[in-house]
């Protein structure tokens, strides 16, 4: 009768009644006028536009500033469910940091034969300049965004570990603000764990990793590529919320052995720089000499202990999609425990047998570029046309090393509000993790991304995805 696979819907059970975590919300929702919700939806959009929560779309000058669509139906997770997720994430993030330290020092995991040397040796994300460098506080990934998908009541998979500069946390915070503004009465009915402490925690977490050279209260700054960057809003937002300066490369210089910012009263040293610029562009003296965004000499100061960079350079080796396939081994090697959260089974196309399997089953698989991000250069087999499949077949044959493939997961759905009422759509979840020497903090919830097109599994904002407020209930 129904040919499409049965997806796990997080709100509604097959019998039409709500699942436990949604019971109170559903009770409220049933009594709401659909028309009022649609009005609220429009109101939210106007609010986002006024606040300026927009992002720039690359290669589309006609629409330089776009809103990420916001859906007013929250995604709700029970406190109990969340506890298990956080344990899994914590374990994973610990392993990531241990892996990074090891890879840039003795490479025990390679010596032990658990990760093949060529996975590191041939990896462009391995940064030789970090060899032998131990960052202040021993932390490499101060901020991590772990992308999760859910396929059933107890089944969570990690899709990727964003260990470079995960973005989107401003949406998590603004989505909550917007919901509080529009539906204040709801929050007195349903007890939702707060997310608003994130900027304070971020500041604390960064300050806890101040470098040796720091004297007194650490000066924290956010380094942005500038107002034309797609995530500029977020950079300004976080700096503002943390009470940190928002700086660009040309505001900074090496002064007295430190990286210092040009203030109205002269140059002032920065202790911790939350940088939202990729490794390659951060220092034209040490990396890409054509970069206009970076700070010449910042790597020299970093290596001499004069500044903390968050995240550390070279963390890309840990969230590389090919390395991802080794995460279960990596977790076991460094923590001595089995991974709590599942990895998605991953075919490394660099291996001839895997490549053959992938080419034979292309229409059922998701193929990702190893170094790609944001859904560019990705193939979703079941949704692809014959021509798209043929194009990818050729790409795979030409450069198998550049790709991995995974089965298409039956991503869970949560209803969104449409003109015709509620309709289920696939979602993922990016919780935000803060790592400091004495603790790992995971903000309850995170950013739920939702594929707005019916049946679509692609949630990326650059590919027509939207967002939802994510509620973790108090127990």
């Amino acid at each position: 009768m129904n040919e499409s696979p049965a997806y796990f819907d997080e709100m509604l059970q097959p019998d039409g009644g709500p699942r436990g975590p949604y019971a109170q919300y559903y009770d409220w929702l049933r009594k709401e006028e659909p028309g009022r919700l649609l009005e609220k939806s429009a109101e939210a959009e106007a609010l986002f536009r006024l606040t300026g929560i927009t992002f720039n779309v690359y290669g589309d000058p006609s629409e330089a500033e776009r809103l990420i669509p916001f859906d007013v139906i929250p995604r709700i997770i029970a406190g109990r469910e969340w506890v298990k997720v956080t344990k899994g994430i914590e374990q994973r993030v610990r392993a990531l940091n241990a892996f990074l330290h090891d890879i840039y020092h003795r490479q025990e995991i390679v010596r032990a034969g658990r990760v093949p040397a060529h996975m590191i040796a041939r990896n462009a994300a391995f940064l030789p300049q970090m060899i032998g460098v131990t960052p202040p506080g021993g932390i490499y990934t101060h901020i991590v965004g772990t992308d999760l998908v859910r396929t059933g009541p107890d089944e969570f998979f990690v899709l990727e570990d964003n260990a470079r500069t995960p973005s989107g946390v401003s949406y998590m915070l603004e989505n909550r603000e917007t919901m509080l503004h529009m539906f204040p009465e709801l929050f007195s009915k349903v007890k939702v764990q707060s997310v608003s402490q994130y900027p304070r925690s971020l500041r604390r977490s960064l300050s806890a990793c101040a470098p040796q050279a720091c004297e007194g209260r650490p000066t924290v700054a956010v380094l942005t590529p500038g107002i034309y960057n797609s995530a500029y809003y977020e950079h300004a937002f976080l700096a503002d919320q943390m009470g940190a300066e928002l700086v660009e490369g040309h505001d900074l210089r090496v002064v007295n052995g430190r990286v210092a910012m040009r203030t109205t009263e002269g140059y002032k040293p920065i202790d911790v720089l939350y940088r939202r610029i990729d490794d390659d562009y951060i220092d034209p003296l040490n990396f890409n000499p054509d970069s206009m965004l970076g700070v010449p000499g910042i790597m020299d100061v970093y290596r001499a202990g004069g500044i903390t960079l968050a995240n550390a350079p070279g963390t890309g080796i840990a969230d590389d999609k090919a390395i991802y396939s080794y995460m279960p081994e990596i977790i076991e090697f460094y923590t001595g425990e089995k991974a709590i959260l599942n990895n998605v089974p991953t075919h490394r196309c660099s291996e001839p047998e895997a490549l053959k399997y992938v080419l034979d089953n292309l229409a059922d698989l998701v193929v990702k570029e190893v170094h790609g991000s944001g859904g560019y250069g990705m193939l979703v087999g079941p949704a692809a046309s014959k021509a798209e499949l043929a194009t990818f077949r050729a790409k795979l044959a030409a450069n198998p090393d550049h790709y991995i493939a995974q089965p298409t997961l039956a991503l869970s759905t949560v209803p969104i509000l449409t003109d015709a009422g509620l309709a289920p759509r696939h979602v993922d979840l990016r919780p935000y993790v803060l790592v400091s020497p004495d603790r790992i903090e995971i903000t309850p919830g995170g950013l739920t991304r939702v594929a707005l097109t019916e049946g679509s599994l692609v949630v990326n904002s650059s590919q027509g995805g939207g967002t939802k407020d994510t509620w973790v209930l108090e127990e």
Partner: protein
Amino acid sequence: MRLKIHHQTTYHYDSPVPYGLQQLRLRPKSREGQEVLHWDIAVAGGKLEVCYEDEHANTVDLVSFDPGQTEISITCSGEVEVTDNHGVVGRQKGFVPLWLYERSTALTQAGDGIKALVAGLTRGETDLATLHALSAHILAMVPYSTDQAASDLTVEQAIAAGHAVCQDHAHIFISAARQMGFPARYVSGYLMMDDRVMQDASHAWAEAHVPGLGWVGFDVSNGISPDARYVRVATALDYRGAAPISGMRFGKGAESMNVSLQVQQQ
């Protein structure tokens, strides 16, 4: 052999430099076969910002220009005691995995020229003999000449030019050795030429990693392995990583450089 070295590099700029940085890799280290008795770096027209050890264990000094300078001058002076180890430097130390030295770089990317050169090589009975043969083969195919010396050539450009200086020779050797499966690296340093005190420029050669022996040096331009007249200062995957001075500056205008180098036996 005790070598006394005095090395001064002066940059002159047409117009004042508002801001500039230079990375110096100019501090030799005590190690097997080489003992640094004393070593000083003095900077005129600039100041030392930070000092650290890079991934290849080179000591790096970061120098900033004094604002508005038209001249900056870096003077190294010191004494180094060197013993002749026939070019053998020893086993790989530190955290750098050997495979890193098999990575090609923009300057050492092997193309048809290198491949042809390797194909035309007659191998020796041992790895060491093969590498010595490689060194001789390179010198024969691409003779030493300072005519029209351009800096920052890639190996393929140097082979196409048909002649080379020490930097190009080192690069060609590194690229070819990596092609043949040997980890290889670039060395910048000093060489005391026997017939003179005033040397033309600082020197460069190559090292390859030979199983059993560790790192062994090859000075292609002079057709020998480094002896007691050679002072190792910095190593890296190629010239760019081991350059004695590399920098950037703001402001327009041309620059000129003047080097004075004395290496003499004490």
